[in-house]
């Protein structure tokens, strides 16, 4: 995709359960001495979808942050951003160093090209464990715990209405009023 270097912080052997606090603490420990200008984070993860890690990390690094951005323009130290606020567009000015979380519409990710894939094999991939970041398990212990994970009760098959359109529409309105009681 175009990155010059990758770092993998492997927590598998050291941590049983982590939460957003854990992730933010580990990233903080990594970034502490890196002197970065800009951190691009995701808006929400596809699994837990809590959207906490970006803002938590920015706070720990004492950096300003702007979430759900759809446009990013950097001119020297000045940064102009457009962010999505529940459908409205907010134009924000801020400065580097900065953390942003990316929302759909920011750009169109390219597909990896074949030469890109070949080149990627030669790029440095650093692997770290939390030990290498001078952290131990207790430093990053989760603040929350997951008590249960379950599938929602199987939804009963819906009622597909039959007959002519006029009849279906009449039946639907009647069902919404008497059975579902939402009208």
């Amino acid at each position, binding site marked *: 995709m175009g990155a010059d270097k990758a770092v993998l912080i492997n927590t598998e052997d050291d941590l049983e359960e982590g*939460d*957003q*606090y854990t992730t933010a603490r580990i990233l903080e420990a990594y970034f502490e001495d890196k002197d970065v200008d800009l951190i691009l984070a995701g808006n929400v993860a*596809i*699994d837990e*979808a*809590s*959207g*906490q*890690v*970006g*803002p*938590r990390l920015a*706070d*720990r690094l004492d950096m*300003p*942050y*702007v*979430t759900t951005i759809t446009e990013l323009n950097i001119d020297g130290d000045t940064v*102009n951003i457009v962010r*999505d*606020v*529940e*459908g*409205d*567009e*907010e*134009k*924000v*000015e*801020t*400065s580097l160093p900065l953390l942003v979380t990316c*929302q759909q*519409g920011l750009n169109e990710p390219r597909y990896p090209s074949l030469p890109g894939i070949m080149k990627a094999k030669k790029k440095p991939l650093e692997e770290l464990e939390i030990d290498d970041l001078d952290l131990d398990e207790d430093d990053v212990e*989760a*603040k*929350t*715990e*997951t*008590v*249960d*994970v*379950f*599938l*929602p009760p199987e*939804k009963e098959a*819906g*009622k*597909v*209405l039959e007959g002519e*359109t*006029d009849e*279906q*529409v009449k039946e*639907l*309105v009647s069902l*919404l009023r008497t059975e*579902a009681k*939402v*009208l």
Partner: protein
Amino acid sequence: MTKLLAFAELKDGEIRNVSFETVAAARQIDESAEVVAVVLGNENLEDAANQMIQYGADRAVTVSHDSLSNYTSDAYTQAAMAVIEQEDPDGLVMGHTSAGKDLSPRLASKLDNGLISDITGIEGDQFLRPIYSGKAFEKKSIKDGKTFVTIRPNNIAPLEIDGSRSGEVSSLDVDIKDLRTIIKDVVRKASDGVDLSEANIIVAGGRGVKSEEGFEPLHELADVLGAAVGASRGACDAGYCDYSLQIGQTGKVVTPDLYIACGISGAIQHLAGMSNSKVIVAINKDPEANIFNVADYGIVGDLFDVVPKLTEELKALQVK
């Protein structure tokens, strides 16, 4: 006594519904707790504070400042932290809105505290939240520290309003400074009508709507129902409507009482944004469309035939 903070949210000086839901959520966490409403902004604060009390809060703390007119992370963090330091609460409840999502992780970080985001239910000290785009649920609890949650709008019903209820409203002066982000402009794209994330009824269109004009019958139906109009990503990508209408994983997450999906196939990303709706109606030409798997009622047919007839039927009822 346990003390819980319930954060109000103002938009253009108007209090949002989710604010009252935070009070109800605090009461569900601990019925006998002292619930303190927190109102941050620069206008109508007293009025909002009194409404929070009428909806069940015991008292309210307001912070008024020019830099709180629009939400920014820096200004709101300073104001909220000042209230938290003054009150030293056992728990905090905020709406899982654009502002709540942005602010809550930072406060949690400052407090060195856990945070359970986007909850849809409360069972004692366990909080229910959808994961994997609503395909599964988890129950979480805070191990130690303050009970800190954000609630998904429209899932925890507000308490009944009691107009005679009163409580102390105090204001706190906060010296807000060193702001690192400035809002230059806000472009309103979301329509003036019903707020999509708080709407009780939503009429949504997908690719099947076929064009910008194709949304017209949906708007007419929405008008009759007092509903908001939404869309799937497919319809937005195709340019039939603005992205501000998008419902789904990257758009808005909604939980209306009634969701009418017109010409929407029901991709998982869309379902993530609406599958918690109380009643779902699907109108689609394709009987195999995935949307029928989550719908309570389905009509297999052309939306351009069905929707106008539905509008007429409802209009006829209203006349009666």
